[in-house]
């Protein structure tokens, strides 16, 4: 059941990908559409990694500092 669900999600993910031609990329190429974070959001993630017991994935920093105050 669990494996079937994972397969369905992966299938949906890849079959829903439409080809986007270079002249149709004004939206996906917009700077705000990029998945990387700016320095302000990185600092927020750094605060979260210290003030919460969990380290969020996909962020800039995962260790290298005490953060113990």
């Amino acid at each position, binding site marked *: 059941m669990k494996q079937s669900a994972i397969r369905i999600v992966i299938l949906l993910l890849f079959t829903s990908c439409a080809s986007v031609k270079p002249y149709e990329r004004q939206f996906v190429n917009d700077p705000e559409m990029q998945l990387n974070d700016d320095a302000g959001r990185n600092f927020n993630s750094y605060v979260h990694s210290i003030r919460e*017991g*969990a380290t*969020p994935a996909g962020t800039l920093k995962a260790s290298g500092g005490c953060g113990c105050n």
Partner: protein
Amino acid sequence: MKRKYLIIGSLVFSHFFAKAQVPQDTIIEKINRTEIELVYNHYMQDGNNSAVTGGIGTEKLTVYGPSLTMKKIVGNNSLAFNLGADIITSASVDNIDSVMSSASRRDARSFFNATYEHQFEKQNLALFGGMGFSIESDYFSIGSKLGLVKEDKKKLRSYSIQFQLFNDDLRWGRLNPAYYRPVKLIYPAELRYQEWYDGYRRNSCNLKLGFTQALNKRNIIGIFPEITYQEGLLATPFHRIYFSDSTEVVEQLPRERWKGALALRLNSFVGGRLILKNTINSYADNFGILAFSVENETALKLRHDLTLLPNIRFFAQTGSTYFAPYGMHNSNETYYTSDFDLSELQTYNAGIGLKINPYKYLNKRMIFNGMLFRYNFLYRSNGLKAHIFSIVFQTEFQKKSHD
């Protein structure tokens, strides 16, 4: 007939040795770029569950954090430097010093990182590696990283992998004028009659993976799994524990920690001015913490160079099996902490950002790329409140060189 073959043969032969004719007066110009980013972060928090005083007492803290990033791009190579400092003023810093001084309420963390990247244009591949360090009075960390990013031919899909290594030393003394070298672990003043740990090092390995895909003209998805392994001294030496029988010791945690995290991101361009950036994050570790967060940032383009960024985040975690509040641990336990960062909690974070991106030439060589202001308010379910500010300036210098 022979003449025909001779002509064809001569053409084929000359093809191998022929060079594209470049007019002698043609000069190929390259633009060397230097990107500069100036950042100032400001953080203020207050709460009443300080781990330094066993889970009770003030957590009042202010961090002033200036930093500078400079990235030099020449052809397919780039070299980036990032240096900065966090100046920390807190009530608890007063207790993390071998030379006790009531006026000594300031600590600083300085850091430096360098990253080299090379782009292989034909393969749509980027390789990068870097090293750095951070230093504070009771902590020294050396970090290194190595990774690659591969894009598909259409540049709609990317895969990334990054390996990070951190070697930390928790001894105090490096920034103290009396020593300027690592001396010893700093325990709470009244508990310095014995050594509580048999090591002072902490090592961390992170494996970060990434997959991004443009689903269609208006949607991009990203999947970011991450595994972390830590070993060594994972407890903080100056965190106090008060047992239920009123005896006092320092925090004890296992010497190994495994963390697994997965982030899913979906950015959607809705209409002509609105971008919804959604993130779901899940986390689990062998300390017994399970965590989940949902986050949305909406980018509202007021003008072509002006973007408003309201954002909201909700986070929830189960508590570590080693956590208990002040006076609730039993002295027969092996591991114990009263650090509320490891307790069962929820955090609520909301804020707003403003981005101004004029990409304007200030003179022939200098471009003002933009600036960013952010403010966020964080509330933790145990009463901790924090204000988070960031100001960012981005400029770029361009220099033409001739080939």
